[in-house]
């Protein structure tokens, strides 16, 4: 794994990044002139309406999409090298667990692929499942778990191989609000415990404000960054009640303003 030797603490660095999809209906500009830097240990949320390119940006970081202009580095290397170095874990919108594998064997999947030894594998599975509070569900199959537990298992899978960067694409989007609140506070604890850098896509304002140290507001057509907000909330422990504080509401209002400003009213 590459370490950037204290030279730069930037985990993701995008300059003038653009991505245009060529479709049969003509070109679709998914990202346009995105400049952004994510520092080590940050929790960065990307928020914006559908079509603003937030997921696309995450996929560019993960080398699942190729930018058509500008530059981007991940851990100081190209996204492709970062992927080959297995320097990030990706959590998708759906759990994407393999139904024929038990929970522990789903978590073992990246470890098997990356060639971890048997004993190491067991220890990592145990540790990852502990981090997401899924001890005791090792032998269950995905269909035996609730949606929230399945998504937790998929987070455990992304944690198992100790990548410093966690990319999360609306991981709790399909869950109800109660489960979501719970998982959000769990995620904050996990972030504090693991000191990972997290890039988190969402379209919930409270979620973005509650979780993040930095909020990136994006707007659609073409997808671009309209505001970058550094959170004034304390790092680390944030009780759920923090969402009623004036500070929180102020941040939420600024995010809302940013979203409104970027919104094109002709739709």
């Amino acid at each position, binding site marked *: 794994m590459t370490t950037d030797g204290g030279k730069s603490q930037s985990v993701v660095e995008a300059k003038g990044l653009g991505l245009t999809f060529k479709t049969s209906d003509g070109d679709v500009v998914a990202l346009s002139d995105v400049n952004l830097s994510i520092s080590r240990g940050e929790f960065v949320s990307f928020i914006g309406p559908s079509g603003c390119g937030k997921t696309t940006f995450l996929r560019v970081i993960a080398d699942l999409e190729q930018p058509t202009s500008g530059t981007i580095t991940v851990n100081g290397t190209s996204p492709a090298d970062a992927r080959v170095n297995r320097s990030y874990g*990706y959590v998708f919108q759906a759990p994407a667990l393999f139904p024929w594998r038990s929970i522990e064997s789903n978590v073992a999947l*990246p470890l098997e692929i990356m060639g971890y030894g048997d004993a190491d594998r067991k220890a990592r599975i145990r540790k990852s499942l502990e981090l997401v509070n899924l001890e005791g569900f090792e032998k269950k199959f995905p269909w035996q778990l609730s949606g929230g537990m399945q998504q937790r298992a998929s987070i455990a899978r992304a944690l198992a191989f100790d990548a410093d960067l966690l990319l999360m694409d609306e991981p709790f989007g399909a869950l109800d609000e109660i489960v979501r609140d719970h998982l959000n506070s769990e995620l904050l604890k996990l972030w504090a415990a693991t000191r990972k850098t997290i890039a988190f896509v969402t379209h919930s304002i409270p979620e973005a404000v509650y979780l993040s140290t930095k909020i990136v507001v994006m707007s659609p057509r073409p997808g671009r960054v309209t505001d970058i907000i550094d959170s004034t909330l304390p790092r680390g422990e944030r009780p759920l009640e923090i969402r009623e504080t004036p500070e929180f509401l102020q941040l939420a209002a600024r995010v809302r303003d940013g979203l409104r400003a970027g919104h094109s009213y002709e739709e």
Partner: protein
Amino acid sequence: MRGLMGGKTGPVLIVLLAIVLFWYAMAIVMNAPWQNTLNGRANLTDVPFTEFALQTFGQDKPVLPAPHQVVGAIWTGLFGAAITAPRSLAFHAGITLGATLLGFALGTLLGVLLAVAIVHNNASDRSLMPWIIASQTVPILAIAPMVVVGLGAVGVTGMVPKALISMYLSFFPVVVGMVKGLRTPEAIQLDLMRTYNASPLQVFMKLRWPASIPFLFASMKVGIAISLIGAVVGELSNNAGGGLGVRLLTGSYNGQTIQIWAALFIAAALAAILVILVGWGEKLANRRMGVRA
């Protein structure tokens, strides 16, 4: 309310009973002309109906043998002679079974290999599939003799030519099913494997193959049944080698209708048993793969 009619047994037995009764009735109707001729020669007149019916059930070479005659022939065929004797139906069933299983194994292997090539290679997708479909539009009855005679001419006889015909039939459902099965993984699952920088082999072993197992078993159930048909058709082209097909053939040459029906039922039972065995394999695999019961 449970009782006999609660489960499947009762209804199945009733249908079976209806079929057997209908069969006996048809046996009387279809065997009556010949029985009339026989009775006429023997100067028997005014035979009562029950006696006449029993006569039609007891002919040597009836047009339609009665069920008990077929059952009797199956019984003596299976247990009346040593299993190694050419008179034994079990002996012939064994020959057919061997060719069926060999052909089925080859066909499944060929089908899987073709499906893998088709899924992983765009060129083979476009070039192979039309030929695979065309192969099944040729009547197997026309191909079988050519295969058996042709291979016989170069000294390949016995089980192999028949197995090749079985393979020719059984690879098709496997290709079609497995192409679909290997393509079931969703984009999100393939993306996941990409984030792990998984090799194509790992993607195949850990994602595509396990995802396609349900399709494999569905295809194999069809494949094994038509493998048996392939083996029997192959045997029809070479009556020296033995097998259920040969029993059908010699039976029809000699008007031994009872023998034909007995061989027919043995073949059907054999196919049913094989399909059930594949089903058990499927259940076993399902249990290991955590499929919801």
